[in-house]
C-alpha cells in the first residue's frame, strides 16, 4: 500500500512545490492532520472507550494513508530558513505527530507490511528531507521504537527495508556525529540496548547478497565514527558482540568452504577468477574483506579486540587444524586458502596476526611455519601450493617473516668461514659474481634463440660507436666502441637488469622500516645467541596476549588461557632453536611425526597419542596418495618422506642401543634425564622433542663452539655455561657429552652410507637420521625406478666428509635454515620438477635475492664468499643443475630442437598469462588506497619469469612434440639460462644500488 504511495509521491515531487507559498503548505498540512487526528482519536482507546483494538475499517485506514502521504511530502519539501525549524516541522514536533502515527500503525495489525510501510516512511524522511529531522526527539523516538520492534525475527522483506534504513541512518551519523548522542540517549529511554542501530546491524554482518553488503557498509560508517569517538568505541568493545560475531563468523563461513578444489595440475594459487566461482568462498572473502576494512577504519580498541578474536577464534581453532587434515587435498586446499587470505589482507594489524599465526603458533607442538616448510618437500601438488604460499610470504617484505624464515640462521655468520665475515658487506664492483653466474649457462643452451645487434636499431646508448660529430681532440673514438658490430649481445638481458633494479628498489623501500640492516654486524653475530636467549626469558608474556586476557571476559574461548600458557612455555626456549636445529636440509627434524620424545619412556612402549595420530596421517599422506599417482616421478622424495617418518619412530631407540655400546653415549642419557628433571612441570613430550632430539644437540654444539671460540665474555659465560654444580636448565646448552653423541650419530650415518650408495648424495646433503633397516624396507616399497639423477655425484658441491677429524666441528651449526635448505635441494632437482615447481622456486629465489640485506645478498649472490664446507650455496646448486642439464643434453638426441620448442612454448604461455597477472593485481581489496597501505602484490612478487606461471584458466593444453618423459627436463633446461640471467642481473644491480640505502 505504502510502497505504491511512496512511488506516487516521488512522481509528484517532479511537479514540485517550488513557488508555492510556505504558508499555504502549512495550512494544507494542518488541515490534513486535522482529518487524520479525528480518525486516530476515534480509535484511541484512551479517548474513545468504544474503540476496539484491531477493528479499523479499511476505508479509514486508507484515508489516513492518503493524508499522511501528502503531509510527509509537505514535510520533506519544506525548506528551512537559517537554523530554525520550518513551521511544518515545528508543528510535527510539537504535536508529536510521528509518534502518534507510529502508535496508530501499532494499533492496526502490526504486520510485516505495516513495518515495511513505516520503515519506508522514515527512510524517505531521513534521506529526502531538506532539513535535519533526527535532531528532534519527537521524530527520533518513534523511529527508535520502530527499530526495536523490528529486532528479532523478521521476514527477508522486512530485513531488507530495515537494513536500508539503518544504512541511511549510519551514513547520516557519519556525516553528522552530533546526532550520535541523541541516538544513545533515546535508546536509553527505551530501555533498549544502547546504540540500537548498531546492535540491529550485527546479525547481518555475514549475510550474503545486498542485505549483507548494505549492513556491512553501514557498520563501516559506525566504525569510522568510532575512530573519533571513544564512547562509541568503548560501547562497541564492552557492550556488544560485534568483534566476536565477526571473528567467529569467519570460522563458520570457513567451515562451509569447499574442502577440495578441482585439481588439474596447473594451478598453484587462488585468483579472484577462481574464488568468484565459489559462492561460499565469495561470502567468506566478503567477510574477511569487511574485517580488513573494519580494522582499517575503526578505533584501536575495536581493532585490537577484533584482531585478537580472529586469532583466537578463527586462526588457532579453525585454520590450524585444517592445515593438518588427513588428506593431501584438504591440506592443500587450506594452504591455498591461507595464501589467498594473506594476499587479500592489506591492513598491517590484520596481516600481523596471520603472520604471527604462521610464524609462531604451534599446532601439536610444531610450528606452523615448519610444517609448511616441510611440505615443500612433498611430491604432490601440495608442494606447489606451499611454494606459492611462501612466495606470497616472502613478497611481503616483512622483517618478521624474513627473520624467522632465513635471517636468524644467517645472523650468527656460521654459514661462512670466520675469515670471510668482512665480505658480507662487500660489494661486487666488477660484476664478478654476475659473470660467474652467467658462466653457468650450459653450452647446450646457449645455442638457443638470441638476437644480434644487427637485428636491432643501431643506436643503443651503451654500445654506440662514438658519433663522428663529437669533437675529439685526442681521438677517443676507438676506445668508445665496446661492442663490435656483429657480435652477439643478449638484448633480453637489459630487461632483466631493468626489472632487477625495479624489484630491488621496491624491496629496499619496504625494508626501510626494518629494525636492523642485517649486514653481519647488526644484529651482532657474536651476541645473537645470547640476545635470543635473553629475550626468550624476558618475553614470557606477549603484549598481545595480555590484552587478550583482558578482553576475554566478554566472550570466552577455551583456547585463550591454555594458549597464553603455552605461549609462555614456548617462548621460554624452543622458539629460538627449534626450527634451526638440524644441521642440513633435514626436514625430518620438524616433521610432525618426529617422536624422538619416546626416549623418555624406557622402553618406548607407545608414542604419545597425538604423535601416533600424526604418524598415521603421514602414512596416509604418503602411501595413500602416492600409490594412486603412478606417473609420479619424484620417488626419492616419497621415499625420503617415508623413511623419515619411519626412521624417526625408531631412530631414538636405534641411537640409544648403539650408544649403550659406548660408554660415552651412556653418559648422554643421564644428561637427558637431568634435562627432564629440570623442568618437571612442563609438557614432557614437548620438552623432549626440544631437548633430546639430535639436532638440538647440534645446536648445543654450536653454542659450545661459540663459547670456546669467542673471547671469554663474562656475561655470556654466565648465561650459557653456569658452573657445573647448578647445571639445571642450562645443561642442555653446554653438555660436553653431546660431542660423543654426535660422534655416535656420525657412525650410524656412515654405516648407512656404505649400505646405500644410490642415495649417497642425498644423504650427504640432507643428513637425515635414517636407520638402515627401515631404509631397506621402504626402498623396496617405493623405489620402482630410482631416478639416476639422484645418484649422480656433482663435481661441484664439495662432497663434504661427514667424518672429519673433529666430529664436533663438522656439525658446527653450519646451517642456513630449513627453508633455504629445502628450497635449494628442491632446486637441485630442477630437471625432475614440474614446470610449476620450477617457476615458483625461481620466483622465490629471485625474490630472496632482491632483498638488500647484505647477509642475504652475500649468501645468495656473492659467488666469491667462502662458506663452511657443509653449507650448500646457491651457486653450488646451480652448478650441479648445469651439469645435469649438460649430461641430459648429451644423451638426449634432438636436444636443440626440443629446446627451441620448449622456449616457444614458454613464450606462448607468457603471452597467455599477461592477462592473468593483471588479475592478480586486482586481487587486493579496493580499500587499500585510503590509507595508502595497499601493497601491490603482483609488483612485490613479480619477477621476470613469473608470467610463465600461466593460470589454469588460460591453460595451454599440450606441449607439442616434446615427449612426456623428458618434458620436465627440457623445460627446466629452457628456464635455467633465464634464471641465471635473472640472478646475474640482480647481482649487478645490487652492486650499484647498495649505497642508495645508505645515502637516503
Amino acid at each position: 500500500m505504502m510502497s505504491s504511495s511512496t512511488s506516487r509521491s516521488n512522481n509528484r515531487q517532479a511537479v514540485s512545490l517550488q513557488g508555492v507559498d510556505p504558508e499555504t503548505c502549512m495550512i494544507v498540512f494542518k488541515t490534513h492532520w486535522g482529518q487524520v487526528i479525528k480518525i486516530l482519536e476515534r480509535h484511541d482507546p484512551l479517548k474513545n472507550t468504544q474503540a476496539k483494538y484491531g477493528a479499523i475499517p479499511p476505508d479509514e485506514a486508507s484515508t489516513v494513508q492518503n493524508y499522511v502521504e501528502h503531509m510527509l511530502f509537505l514535510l520533506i519539501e519544506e525548506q528551512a530558513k537559517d537554523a530554525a525549524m520550518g513551521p511544518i516541522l515545528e508543528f510535527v514536533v510539537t504535536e508529536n505527530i510521528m509518534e502518534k502515527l507510529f502508535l496508530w500503525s501499532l494499533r492496526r495489525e502490526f504486520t510485516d507490511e505495516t513495518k515495511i510501510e513505516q520503515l519506508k516512511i522514515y527512510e524517505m524522511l531521513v534521506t529526502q528531507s531538506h532539513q535535519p529531522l533526527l535532531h528532534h526527539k519527537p521524530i527520533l523516538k518513534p523511529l527508535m521504537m520502530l527499530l526495536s520492534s523490528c529486532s528479532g525475527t523478521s521476514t527477508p522483506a522486512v530485513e531488507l527495508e530495515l537494513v536500508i534504513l539503518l544504512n541511511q541512518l549510519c551514513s547520516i551519523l557519519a556525516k553528522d556525529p552530533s546526532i550520535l548522542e541523541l541516538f544513545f540517549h533515546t535508546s536509553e529511554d527505551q530501555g533498549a540496548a544502547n546504540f540500537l542501530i548498531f546492535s540491529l546491524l550485527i546479525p547481518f554482518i555475514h549475510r550474503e547478497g545486498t542485505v549483507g553488503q548494505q549492513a556491512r557498509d553501514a557498520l563501516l560508517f559506525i566504525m569510522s565514527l568510532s575512530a573519533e569517538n571513544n564512547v562509541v568505541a568503548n560501547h562497541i568493545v564492552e557492550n556488544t558482540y560485534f568483534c566476536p560475531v565477526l571473528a567467529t563468523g569467519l570460522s563458520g563461513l570457513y567451515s562451509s568452504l569447499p574442502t577440495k578444489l578441482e585439481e588439474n595440475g596447473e594451478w598453484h594459487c587462488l585468483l579472484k577468477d577462481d574464488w568468484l566461482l565459489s559462492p561460499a568462498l565469495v561470502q567468506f572473502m566478503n567477510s574477511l574483506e569487511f574485517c580488513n576494512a573494519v580494522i582499517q577504519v575503526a578505533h584501536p580498541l575495536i581493532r585490537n579486540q577484533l584482531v585478537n578474536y580472529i586469532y583466537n577464534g578463527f586462526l588457532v581453532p579453525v585454520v590450524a587444524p585444517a592445515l593438518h587434515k588427513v588428506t593431501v587435498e584438504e591440506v592443500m586446499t587450506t594452504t591455498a586458502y591461507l595464501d589467498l587470505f594473506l594476499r587479500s589482507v592489506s591492513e598491517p594489524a590484520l596481516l600481523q596476526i596471520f603472520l604471527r599465526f604462521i610464524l609462531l603458533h604451534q599446532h601439536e607442538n610444531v610450528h606452523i611455519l615448519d610444517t609448511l616448510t616441510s611440505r615443500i618437500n612433498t611430491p604432490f601438488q601440495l608442494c606447489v601450493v606451499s611454494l606459492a604460499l611462501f612466495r606470497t610470504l616472502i613478497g611481503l617484505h616483512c622483517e618478521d617473516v624474513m627473520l624467522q624464515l632465513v635471517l636468524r640462521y644467517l645472523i650468527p655468520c656460521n654459514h661462512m668461514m670466520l675469515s670471510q665475515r668482512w665480505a658480507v658487506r662487500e660489494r661486487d664492483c666488477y660484476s664478478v659474481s654476475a659473470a660467474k653466474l652467467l658462466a653457468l649457462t650450459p653450452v647446450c643452451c646457449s645455442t638457443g634463440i638470441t638476437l644480434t645487434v644487427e637485428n636491432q636499431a643501431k643506436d643503443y646508448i651503451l654500445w654506440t660507436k662514438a658519433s663522428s660529430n663529437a669533437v675529439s681532440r685526442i681521438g677517443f673514438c676507438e676506445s668508445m666502441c665496446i661492442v663490435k658490430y656483429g657480435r652477439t649481445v643478449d638484448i633480453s638481458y637489459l630487461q632483466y637488469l631493468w626489472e632487477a633494479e625495479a624489484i630491488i628498489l621496491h624491496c629496499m623501500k619496504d625494508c626501510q622500516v626494518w629494525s636492523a640492516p642485517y649486514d653481519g654486524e647488526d644484529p651482532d653475530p657474536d651476541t645473537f645467541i645470547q640476545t635470543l636467549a635473553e629475550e626468550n626469558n624476558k618475553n614470557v608474556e606477549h603484549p598481545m596476549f595480555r590484552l587478550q586476557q583482558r578482553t576475554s571476559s566478554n566472550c570466552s574461548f577455551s583456547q585463550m588461557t591454555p594458549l597464553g600458557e603455552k605461549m609462555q612455555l614456548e617462548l621460554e626456549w624452543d622458539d629460538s632453536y627449534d626450527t634451526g636445529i638440524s644441521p642440513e636440509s633435514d626436514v625430518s627434524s620438524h616433521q610432525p611425526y618426529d617422536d624422538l620424545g619416546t626416549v623418555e619412556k624406557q622402553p618406548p612402549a607407545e608414542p604419545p597419542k597425538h604423535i601416533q595420530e600424526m604418524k598415521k596421517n603421514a602414512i596416509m599422506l604418503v602411501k595413500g596418495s602416492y600409490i594412486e599417482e603412478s606417473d609420479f616421478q619424484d620417488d626419492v622424495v616419497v621415499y625420503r618422506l617415508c623413511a623419515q617418518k619411519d626412521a624417526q619412530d625408531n631412530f631414538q631407540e636405534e641411537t640409544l642401543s648403539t650408544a649403550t655400546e659406548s660408554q660415552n653415549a651412556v653418559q648422554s642419557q643421564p644428561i637427558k634425564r637431568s634435562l627432564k628433571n629440570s623442568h618437571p612441570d612442563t609438557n614432557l613430550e614437548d620438552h623432549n622433542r626440544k631437548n633430546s632430539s639430535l639436532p638440538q644437540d647440534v645446536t648445543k654444539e654450536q653454542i659450545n663452539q661459540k663459547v670456546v671460540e669467542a673471547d671469554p665474555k663474562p656475561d655470556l659465560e654466565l648465561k650459557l655455561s653456569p658452573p657445573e654444580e647448578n647445571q639445571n636448565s642450562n645443561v642442555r646448552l653446554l653438555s660436553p657429552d653431546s660431542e660423543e653423541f654426535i660422534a655416535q650419530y656420525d657412525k650410524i650415518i656412515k654405516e648407512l652410507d656404505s649400505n646405500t650408495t644410490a642415495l649417497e648424495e642425498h644423504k650427504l646433503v640432507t643428513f637425515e637420521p635414517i636407520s638402515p633397516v627401515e631404509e631397506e624396507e621402504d626402498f623396496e616399497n617405493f623405489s620402482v625406478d630410482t631416478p639416476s639423477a639422484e645418484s649422480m655425484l656433482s663435481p661441484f658441491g664439495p662432497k663434504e666428509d661427514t667424518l672429519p677429524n673433529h666430529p664436533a666441528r663438522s656439525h658446527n651449526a653450519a646451517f642456513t635454515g630449513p627453508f633455504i635448505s629445502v628450497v635449494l635441494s628442491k632446486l637441485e632437482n630442477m630437471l625432475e620438477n614440474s614446470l610449476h615447481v620450477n617457476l615458483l622456486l625461481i620466483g622465490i629465489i629471485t625474490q630472496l635475492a632482491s632483498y638488500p640485506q647484505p647477509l642475504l645478498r652475500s649468501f645468495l649472490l656473492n659467488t666469491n664468499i667462502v662458506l663452511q664446507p657443509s653449507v650448500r650455496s646457491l651457486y653450488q646448486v646451480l652448478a650441479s643443475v648445469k651439469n645435469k642439464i649438460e649430461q641430459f643434453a648429451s644423451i638426449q638426441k634432438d636436444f636443440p630442437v626440443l629446446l627451441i620448442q620448449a622456449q616457444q612454448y614458454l613464450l606462448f604461455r607468457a603471452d597467455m598469462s599477461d592477462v592473468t597477472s593483471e588479475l592478480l593485481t586486482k586481487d587486493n581489496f579496493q580499500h587499500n588506497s585510503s590509507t595508502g597501505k595497499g601493497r601491490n602484490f603482483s609488483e612485490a612478487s613479480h619477477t621476470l619469469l613469473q608470467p610463465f606461471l600461466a593460470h589454469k584458466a588460460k591453460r595451454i593444453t599440450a606441449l607439442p612434440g616434446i615427449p612426456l618423459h623428458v618434458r620436465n627436463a627440457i623445460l627446466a633446461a629452457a628456464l635455467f639460462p633465464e634464471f641465471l640471467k635473472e640472478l646475474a642481473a640482480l647481482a649487478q644491480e645490487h652492486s650499484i644500488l647498495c649505497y642508495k640505502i645508505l645515502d637516503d
Partner: protein
Amino acid sequence: MNPFWSMSTSSSRKRPEIEEKTLPGELKISPPRASIKKQLPSIPKNAVPMTKPASPAPSSQSTNGTHASYGPFYLEYSLLAEFTLVVKQKLPGVYVQPSYRSALMWFGVIFIRHGLYQDGVFKFTVYIPDNYPDGDCPRLVFDLPVFHPLVDPVSGELDVKRAFAKWRRNHNHIWQVLMYARRVFYKIDTTIPLNPEAAVLYEKDIQLFKSKVIDSIKLCSNHLFDQPKIEDPYAISFSPWNPTIHDEAREKMLTQKKKPEDQHCKSMQVSGLSWVKPGSVQPFSKEEKTMPT
C-alpha cells in the same frame, strides 16, 4: 663572482637519474617485443626461429661462450659502481657526470676554494680505458691547459700516472683519481713536471708563478660559459645566472635538508612491514603502538 654562475646540470652530484631512466626507457622502444614481461630471449614474432640454430653463424657465436656477450654489461656496471663510489665520497668541490654516449667518458669540474689556485674553476674530462678495470689508469684532461707543473701545457692532460703507476682492480678507484686531481692544486709537486716552466717558476719565482696561475684562472673563468668541448647531452655547461631558472634550483638545494626527513617518515607509513623491536631478534617483539589517541 662565485654566486653569479651556476651549472646547468645542477644535480650532478646526485646520481644522474636522468641517465638511468633514459637507458631502459629508450631501450624499451627498440626491442621488437616491447613488453617487459616476456623474458625468454625475444623471438621476433615473424621470424622462423628454427633456422637460427641450424645456420652456422650462431654456432660460431656460441663458441664465443656466454661471457663475451655480457662483457659490455659487466663493464657498464663496473663503471656505474665506480660512479656510485664517487658520489659516496662527496669530494669537496669536485663534480662529475658520465657522458650520455659512453660510460667510459666522464665530464667533470673542480672548484678550488683556497690556496694558490683559489677561485679556479676547471672543467675536465675523464677517459676510462675500455678494458677497465684491468687496463691502464684513467686519463684526466682539463678542457683548458691549466698552468700547473703536472698539467701538460698543450693537451691539458694531468699526469695521473705518477700517482697510479699500475692500476690495480679492487684497490684503485676512479674517485681516487678525482681526489688526486683536486689535491694537486693544493699541494704542488714539481718533480718530473709535464710543464717544466711552471715547475721552475714555482721553485724559483713564486710571484711570477702566482701571477701566471691567476692568469690561467682568469682564462678558465672567461671561457666558462663556452659551449662544452665535447658535444654531449650530459656535458657540463655553465650559463650566466638566470633567476627564472636558477633561483628555483637554488631554493631547492637549500631547502632539501629538511625535506628528506619528512619524506622518510611518510614512506615509513606507506610501505614495509616490521614488528621487530630494534635490538631484538624476535619476531613481533615490538610493543603494539596501536593507541594513537
